């Protein structure tokens, strides 16, 4: 079966591990458990009648304590850049990280997940900013690892983009 390496990238506590857990195990934990290191999971998805194994690299979130090793991105077919929609700065951090990723591995299919979409009252990313990002070529999904909203859709979208490449 065809396999594609997908990396989950973004700041700490934006919900990368939760998105993977929601996709792989259909589960969500309210409590925040920080990720140290890398955790690799697999998930078979079907897109266009074709089965595809996503090898999901859940890479620890960057912060003042840990910087990401670019060697983890080797052989990556696509990535999901995750930002927390209730913390505007995580979007800017994610975009800064994206620049380093593109410089390292070049252009590969990517999707921007604005996670925690269930927390509408705390949402900090305004439509104008989203419109800017879309205009800049980003595929955007409002995901919620908690409710499962748009999680599978986001991964399927990326899968299709990777297969189309």
């Amino acid at each position, binding site marked *: 079966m065809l396999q594609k390496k997908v990396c989950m990238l973004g700041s700490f506590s934006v919900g990368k591990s939760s998105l993977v857990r929601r996709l792989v195990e259909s589960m969500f934990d309210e409590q925040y458990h*920080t990720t140290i290191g890398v955790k690799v999971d697999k998930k078979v998805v079907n897109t266009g009648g074709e089965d595809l194994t996503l090898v999901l690299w859940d890479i620890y979130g960057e912060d003042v304590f840990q910087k990401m090793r670019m060697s983890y991105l080797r052989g990556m077919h696509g990535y999901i850049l995750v930002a927390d929609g209730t913390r505007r700065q995580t979007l800017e951090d994610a975009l800064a990280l994206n620049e380093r990723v593109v410089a390292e591995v070049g252009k590969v299919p990517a999707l921007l997940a604005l996670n925690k979409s269930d927390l509408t009252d705390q949402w900090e990313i305004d439509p104008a900013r989203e419109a800017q990002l879309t205009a800049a070529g980003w595929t955007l999904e409002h995901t919620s690892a908690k409710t499962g909203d748009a999680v599978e859709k986001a991964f399927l979208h990326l899968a299709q983009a990777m297969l189309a490449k």
Partner: protein
Amino acid sequence: MPAHSIFESFLAGQGCALFEYLGDGDFRLLGEWPDWCANIWGAQPNSDQPIGLAGKSPFLGNFLVDAEEFWRTRSPGSANSGNWIERGADGREIPMEATARSLDGKRILLLQNLSETFGQQQQWFQTARNSLLEHEKLLKEIQKKEILLHCIVHDLTQPLSAMNGVFNLLERENLPAALRKYIKAGERESQRQERMIRGILEAFSSDLAAQQSRETSAAEAPDLLACAKQAIEEFSPAFRERQIGLSLGAHAGSSRGWRVVGDSSRIDRILGNLLENAMRYAPKASTVTIGLENHEGFVLAFVDDEGPGLPPDQRPEQLFALFSKGKSHAGKAGLGLYFCKITVERWGGAIGAEIRKGGGSRFWFRLPRVSQSAENVTTAASRSKSVDKETPHSHKKAEKSLRILIAEDAELNRDLIIELLKKRGHVAIGVTDGRRALAALEEHDFDVVLLDEEMPGMTGLQTTAAIRRREAATGKHQIIIGISGHATADDEHRFREAGMDSSLAKPVEVKTLYKAVESAARNLHSTAAHSQPQHAAEPGAATAPAAAPSVAAQARADSSAHAGAENEDALTHLRRTTGGNEKLIRSLAATFLADAPKALGRMRSAVAKKNAAELASAAHLLKGSLAIFGAPKAVASARHLEALGRANNLREATASLRTLESEFALLQHELRAIHSAAKPKSQAPRQSRVSSKGARQKK
């Protein structure tokens, strides 16, 4: 037990498994196959059989590329994989780490189960990151409260400003003396209330703002002696009126310099509060003295009075507590000294009060002195040099005075451009739309016309078309420069296609503006000197003078030269765009503070009433004003709201308006600081409108 067996057992006991790399992703086990390996990868393989570890673990497979490179280059030391997690057959997560080494010419890989230490590491990271999240939350809460407070204060002060205005108007009427007395009293009280409300704002917002607005470099740090002199200058009339002397006492150790950590506008306010306090208690014919002393590491400033001393029922430190006030002055909010205390303490200083030996009281504060290190001096010198180089040049009078017409609906933008052009020695006339521009052109000759792209009634492009149509009959060519909210190459192209000669991006920067108008006019004159006028010009056709160097392109280059400009605060932005014209900056801030809330109010009302056209119009006006102060986020929100209004789509308008309001409140806060930093004498009347005097009347 053989030595190697002891060693292998020891390694296994330490949670390690040792392998020799055979190539092609295969390994040979050296020693024991620990239980945790069995949990992850199954039972121990046959000792003769190579183990394909790279195939068993994608992470390890990835690390093997680095490890192979390490072994190939015979690098010293070791290569480390970083932590990763494997899941065992029993579902347990096993944290691991791989290390590659070369030993006796062999390529050795050590796999280590980190379960024992990982928990502790995890806990440490968890705690640290939770703290970061808590900190973020707290900052957000503070910011929310700040914005709320600003909104409340704004709502409270707005009627007072109106009342002050009414009192001012009444004062000018020819009223009986008794009535004038009442009006004066009313005015005084409303002003007092306004000061108290502002005091509340400053006291409660100083926590954040004070931290953000502190200078620690010698070049930028406030000079306490200069602040003291300024305070004396400002307060002398009030003291004289009360027949109290005010003087600057001896300042000891002056050779060391008086630069301290802090922010000059807030130091001014602290000194102001202490002087107001002294003025209330000092008896007639006495003297209040401001003194400075230079001590090791800090500067001490004090205000001495000859009054009754400190209240006997209060300890000195209680005077600086929140809402502390003397019984005889019940009208005071009790915030002034509290504001001084929290501000000074935020800067690492201290504040206090004491009874003077000879009678009276001393209120003092001390602030850390900023050392004039060689580096700072150099930086300051080079910075001042660059300012010297730029500012006078920017406002140097032009070689030739030009007559310039500006059509721009946003008042603040119009005023800014007019003022900058006047500084340069040009004659500038402002009108609010395209039709008025056409009317002005009927009446007067202008060397250059600046047209805003988006104006109500007749846009800049429509006005250009009308001007060019008229020129078909006269054969003249009017220099037209378009002003656009953007500075893209597409805009520039569009403007030229429409018949404009050049374009400028908003907010207009001083250097770019001068360059645009002067080079365009110069080109026109040189063309006129060398050729006869041509006729029947198509828009943008050959009658246009040799194109002025692409000003929009220059603006783009300038803006990229100001990398990070989008993060600069309003004051820095204004200093850059106005060439450091402080008077103009204060005037712009005052005008914005007075007018922009009305535009925002119009937008609120338009959203509430679902009036899309009104929303687009008000958002357009506000967008232009906001752009003058940088404020990219606020501008983007206003632009979005304008677009929503034009598209008659108000679904997202409430959320966008909320964003705009937040950004607006932050900008207001910055501008109030700029405004309040102004001396009272310069706070005054707004820029007077430019008259048409000076433009050449058409015969």
